[in-house]
């Protein structure tokens, strides 16, 4: 009963200056909202990262070929093969016992066209030479037709499987199955035997920062690729030729169990670097390790976000303290009257503390409500940016475009608790100052 009256009185005192109280509440509100939003965004980003890494396959080890920087500098260059070779592939396949499957992959940037649809200009895509196991290891889902078969690989057939987006661009109104894809640079035709379902981009690997995009891929048997295109690539840029030679772009090693991954990765690395320990033309990427790193990074990220949010809460708290100190001075007379009418020091402390707690609780609750709206606001902001400022939107990293903020459940009670603590902490001093006033002096105060 008494407590209820204290709260009622506190709220009424605050409502005497609605504007002032609202602004004070705003400080805490922004603090709490930012705690929830920042945590939701960092959770969303790290989830997206983890998903991308998981798409690489936690039980996989990926070896990428890296083109070494041009050191000769002269016009005449010796054409030297770089990267992982078929010999490396065979070595890994035969010597390491924990390896379940090894996939050789060779990628070429390539233009694709469909002669039956001359309206569409050739598309810049990626030609991927691979084996039938590729679809299992990378968890490809076929929407129509079938993936490359071992029979097609052995017979070195000119067949291909195309990615969903590419299919929809080249064949907007036709069934792509059994149609011929034309590669203008190679003057080759490939018959489409399967169409994939859309696939998410995976985390960046092999020294590049951008996420891997699979939306414009065409998959052909690696044996066909070798027979038709060899190991050398000639590129014409601005009148001069450049030739590069590589046998494979990537080897994906699938390990029996995730537990064996670190050990196997070491073995693979040692095998590849047996001859030249300082070899610069390969990179061994272990998604499992990336995942572990990402988890640590996530924690750091969250702590960092918490720190920023905590600062804004402290700022809000100082706002409360500031207002309460002003209020105490302004209400000196009231304090004197209350003391004269029998209020103990503790009653006065309680009265002012109730007011600050009310402010911070109201700020905390509205902050939580606003915080819960965070993902919607984010979605609207992203949609708005996409339709009104596409150029700006293009600058947003892939992760920012794909990720969805995810509210961390713990952030709600935690931020509420912190806001109350801030209210008590920053309210205590003004309240005690009010209580310590000499009633005689306070009564005389004008």
């Amino acid at each position, binding site marked *: 009963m*008494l407590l209820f*009256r204290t709260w009622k009185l506190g709220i009424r005192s605050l409502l005497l200056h609605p504007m002032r109280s609202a602004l004070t509440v705003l400080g805490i509100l922004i603090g709490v909202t930012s705690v929830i939003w920042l945590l939701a965004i960092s959770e969303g980003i790290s989830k997206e990262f983890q998903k991308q890494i998981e798409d690489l396959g936690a039980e996989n080890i990926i070896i990428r070929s890296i083109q070494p920087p041009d050191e000769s500098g002269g016009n005449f260059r010796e054409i030297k093969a770089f990267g992982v070779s078929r010999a490396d592939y065979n070595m890994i396949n035969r010597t390491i016992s924990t390896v379940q499957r090894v996939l050789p992959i060779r990628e070429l940037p390539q233009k694709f066209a469909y002669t039956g649809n001359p309206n569409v200009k050739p598309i810049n895509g990626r030609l991927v030479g691979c084996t039938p196991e590729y679809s299992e290891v990378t968890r490809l889902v076929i929407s129509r037709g079938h993936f490359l078969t071992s029979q097609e690989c052995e017979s070195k057939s000119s067949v291909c499987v195309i990615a969903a987006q590419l299919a929809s661009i080249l064949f907007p109104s036709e069934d792509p199955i059994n149609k011929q894809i034309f590669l203008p640079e190679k003057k080759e035709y490939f018959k489409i035997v399967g169409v994939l379902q859309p696939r998410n981009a995976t985390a960046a690997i092999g020294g590049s920062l951008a996420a891997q995009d699979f939306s414009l891929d065409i998959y052909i048997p690696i044996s066909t690729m070798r027979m038709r295109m060899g190991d050398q690539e000639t590129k014409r840029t601005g009148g001069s030729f450049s030739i590069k030679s590589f046998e494979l772009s990537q080897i994906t090693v699938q390990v029996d169990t995730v537990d064996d991954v670190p050990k196997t990765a070491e073995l693979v690395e040692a095998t590849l670097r047996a001859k030249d320990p300082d070899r610069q033309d390969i990179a061994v990427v272990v998604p499992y390790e990336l995942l572990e790193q990402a988890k640590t990074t996530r924690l750091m990220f969250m702590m960092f976000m918490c720190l920023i949010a905590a600062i804004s809460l402290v700022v809000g708290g100082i706002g409360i303290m500031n207002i309460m100190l002003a209020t105490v001075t302004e209400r000196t007379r009231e304090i004197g*009257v*209350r003391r*004269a*009418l*029998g*209020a103990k020091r503790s009653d006065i402390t309680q009265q002012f503390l109730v007011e600050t707690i009310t402010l911070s609780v109201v700020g905390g609750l509205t902050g939580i409500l606003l915080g819960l709206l965070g993902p919607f606001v984010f979605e609207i902001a992203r949609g708005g940016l996409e339709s009104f400022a596409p150029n700006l939107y293009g600058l947003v990293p892939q992760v920012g475009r794909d990720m969805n903020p995810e509210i961390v459940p713990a952030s709600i009670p935690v931020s509420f608790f912190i806001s109350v603590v801030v209210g008590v902490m920053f309210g205590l001093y003004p309240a005690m100052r009010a209580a310590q006033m000499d009633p005689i002096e306070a009564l005389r105060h004008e």
Partner: protein
Amino acid sequence: MNASPKKMAAIISGLQKHYVLKSETVRALRGVSFEVPEGDYVAIMGPSGSGKSTLLNLLGCLDRPTHGSFLLGDDDVATMTDDELSAIRASRIGFVFQSYNLIPQLSVVENIEVPLYYKGTLNSESRKRSIGLAAMVGLGDRLGHRPTQLSGGQQQRVAIARSLVNDPYFILADEATGNLDSVTTEEILALFQRLNDEGRTIIMVTHEDEVSVHAKRVIRLRDGEIQVDEPIKNRQVFTEEQIKEISKNASSESEE
């Protein structure tokens, strides 16, 4: 302890109050002794610097004397802690201030209840009592009003109702009519007389002779000592008709 046949509301003996200002000790009260029997109506007068305010603070239990004793009922206020003084103020003293000192965010009834809130005896019974007191001072129809919606005289009547709510040993009025015009001053003084006639003890600090002549007894202070302590000779008393007339006018006073 006292030989007087009447019961005492307050017994003051040898009261001294010293303040230390810088290195100098100011002796604001230099040994003041008097008794206030129940039902008395005392005016305390004196020029500024006479120790009037100091005595008022001590009588109001807002301060403790340096020497001497102040018996309020059976308890010596001189030795009490701060919290005990607060409790005494909440239960035994009824303050009436010069500038009314109502709490702006509370209604008339809630203002009257404030001492009970701190005394811890707030209940539906006391709410009835507060409403009754508001009616008694002629504000029965303005229970929900805020202090800012009332005139000075009305605010002071709310303050008087507030001073009565805890059934105090005495009402301590500090220049209670100082901010009021002569008509309203009469109105408040008539109310005090009515309360005194009903048996309430009143101690009134004032510097106006026109006000003090309504009391039964005057104590004049000078330089921290009692100069005069005597009954008022030509006491001005409102007649029954006058009181009725005044309170009728007061309650029909238009809202300001």
